[in-house]
């Protein structure tokens, strides 16, 4: 018995020595740990600071315009840099109308795609199909704009708009010369751009609905569509609403593609054929050429309004999505 024991002891001692050496090598680990922790904290604080910086920058640089016009700024439709008179109403109107138009077109399509991918299509098609729709989200805005100018707008001008005038002219939404460029083109291109985000979120919340829910409805004798409607869509509706609002947030802040096709004229027209202007596109077009402090300040105030609105919209959306997906187990290690 006394034979092997010293050997074992030696081994243990050896291992301890290695571990101790590692400890010594990383030396003063408490100090180093502290430094590391604070360095990472600094990075985290950067994120906070950035949002603070955005608010600060927008607030200080729009101060002049706020002083000059107050809340009236958003209810006044004159945008006249020559006489230093600024009102943001046409831009607010253009942003809201183009975004709502986009939602009207995009929502049914996005939900249709999500329903098809999660409930109807064969399993082998699911991956490629969702990858392809997500590819739409990876295309830069300026390329959508380019395509819209040279493909979508001529298409609208030559075929779609004459058709709309002929059969839906009585709605008075489609009046005036069919230029192609205008509110309708902006709404359509925005719709194409926000379909991926809405359908991605819809898919996510539909997947979060428990499988038993579907089986239970089917067992009651429902057809597939009845199962989807009552078993899935109804349970996921808050999350789907969240996806739609997230899409709205995207549409409100979208700049390049809209700027390239909306016509950029600060007018409020009822017809969807008429050119318009959005908050984001007026900043894009006029910011670098804005002469005069009040002009620049007014543009920053438009930016501040856009910032506040998109933040509120995004927070609401995230809350809604969270109410549906919170029940699903997190992917993190438990």
């Amino acid at each position, binding site marked *: 018995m006394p034979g092997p024991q010293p050997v074992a002891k030696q081994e243990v001692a050896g291992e301890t020595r290695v571990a101790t050496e590692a*400890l010594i090598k990383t030396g003063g680990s408490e100090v180093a740990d502290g430094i590391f922790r604070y360095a990472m904290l600094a990075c985290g604080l950067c*994120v906070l600071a950035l949002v603070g910086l955005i608010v600060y920058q927008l607030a200080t640089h729009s101060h002049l315009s706020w002083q000059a016009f107050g809340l009236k700024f958003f209810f006044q439709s004159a945008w006249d840099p020559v006489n230093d008179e600024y009102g943001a109403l046409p831009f607010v109107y253009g942003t809201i109308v183009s975004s709502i138009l986009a939602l009207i077109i995009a929502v*049914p399509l996005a939900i*249709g795609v999500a329903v098809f991918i999660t409930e109807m299509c064969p399993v082998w098609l699911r991956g490629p199909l969702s990858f392809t729709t997500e590819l*739409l989200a990876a295309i830069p805005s*300026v390329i959508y704009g380019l395509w819209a100018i040279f493909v979508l707008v001529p298409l609208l001008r030559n075929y779609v708009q004459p058709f709309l005038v002929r059969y839906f002219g009585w709605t008075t939404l489609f009046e005036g010369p069919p230029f192609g460029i205008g509110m309708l083109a902006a709404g359509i291109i925005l719709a194409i751009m926000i379909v991926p985000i809405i359908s991605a979120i819809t898919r996510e919340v539909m997947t979060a609905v428990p499988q038993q829910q579907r089986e239970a409805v089917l067992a009651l004798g429902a057809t597939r569509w009845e199962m989807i409607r009552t078993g899935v869509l109804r349970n996921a509706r808050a999350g789907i609403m969240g996806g739609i609002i997230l899409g709205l947030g995207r549409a409100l*802040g979208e700049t390049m593609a809209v700027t390239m096709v909306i016509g950029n004229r600060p007018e409020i027209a009822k017809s969807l054929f008429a050119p318009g202007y959005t908050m984001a596109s007026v900043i894009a077009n006029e910011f670098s050429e804005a002469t005069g402090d009040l002009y620049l300040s007014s543009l920053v105030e438009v*930016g501040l309004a856009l910032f506040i609105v998109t933040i509120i*919209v995004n927070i609401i959306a995230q809350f809604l999505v969270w109410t549906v997906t919170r029940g699903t187990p997190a*992917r993190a290690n438990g």
Partner: protein
Amino acid sequence: MASSTALTNDFAAAPISLRRRLMDWTATGAAVAAVVLVLAPLGAIFGYLVYKGIGAVNWNFLTQIPKPPGEVGGGMANAIAGSAYILMIASVIGVPIGIGAGIYLAEYGRNRFGDVIRFTADVLNGVPSIVIGIVAYGIVVLRQGHFSALAGGVALAIMMIPTITRATEEMLLLVPNVVREAAYGLGVSRWRTTLSITLRTATSGVITGVMLAFARVAGETAPLLFTAFGNTYWNWKINEPTAALSLQVFTYATSPYDDWHRQAWAGALMLIVLIVLSVTAVRIAAGRGMKGG
């Protein structure tokens, strides 16, 4: 026994009414139609990009700088280089901060304060890019007194940070706690564990996040309009206005010249090739990560 069979028979015999069946078919048809309607523009956009772009990409396009307005010829060499330059500046600023913030959230931020940062990152993610442009203008351009590559880089960095932060956090959380505990058990300090064990294990995932952020800002135009501003000549100075591919596509597409329209398509094709390459890299990296995990 008998009654049970009768019941089953009843159930099987109860036909689904024609109205319900029609509704089912209509719904299926509508969903298929939606998929076709969504894929059609995608096909059309890529089709046109390749069709119009391929013919316009040539040696001159890749090696020359723009000719004066209205003249035929010239290229986007300076814009391609400028985009790479601005993206490099953005990555140098944005990647370390983003990863650092992600490490903080995953390793130290499992509390209220962490939640605040997490929420703020999500808010930052939703800020329209044009607004980020205004902010970069305020903090860089106004201070320097002129447009610059640095301002463009700062704008894009601000957009990269929240994406990288959340992706890094998510990936680090996928690393099982036993791995960390094993390292602590060997007496390795916490910071060494985080850097050489946890972060190392999650490398491919973190790279995926960084590439996604990169792909997202690579095509951005709006925040560059009044920061990098564009330039018709070569520029390698960080303090001077710089050309960018996306800006050039915008300028050329909205110009009245046919030759510029042709080049806009070529520029767009270059841009999409750049982005598709990074997305593919992401896919490969993510695939490798899954096998490794």
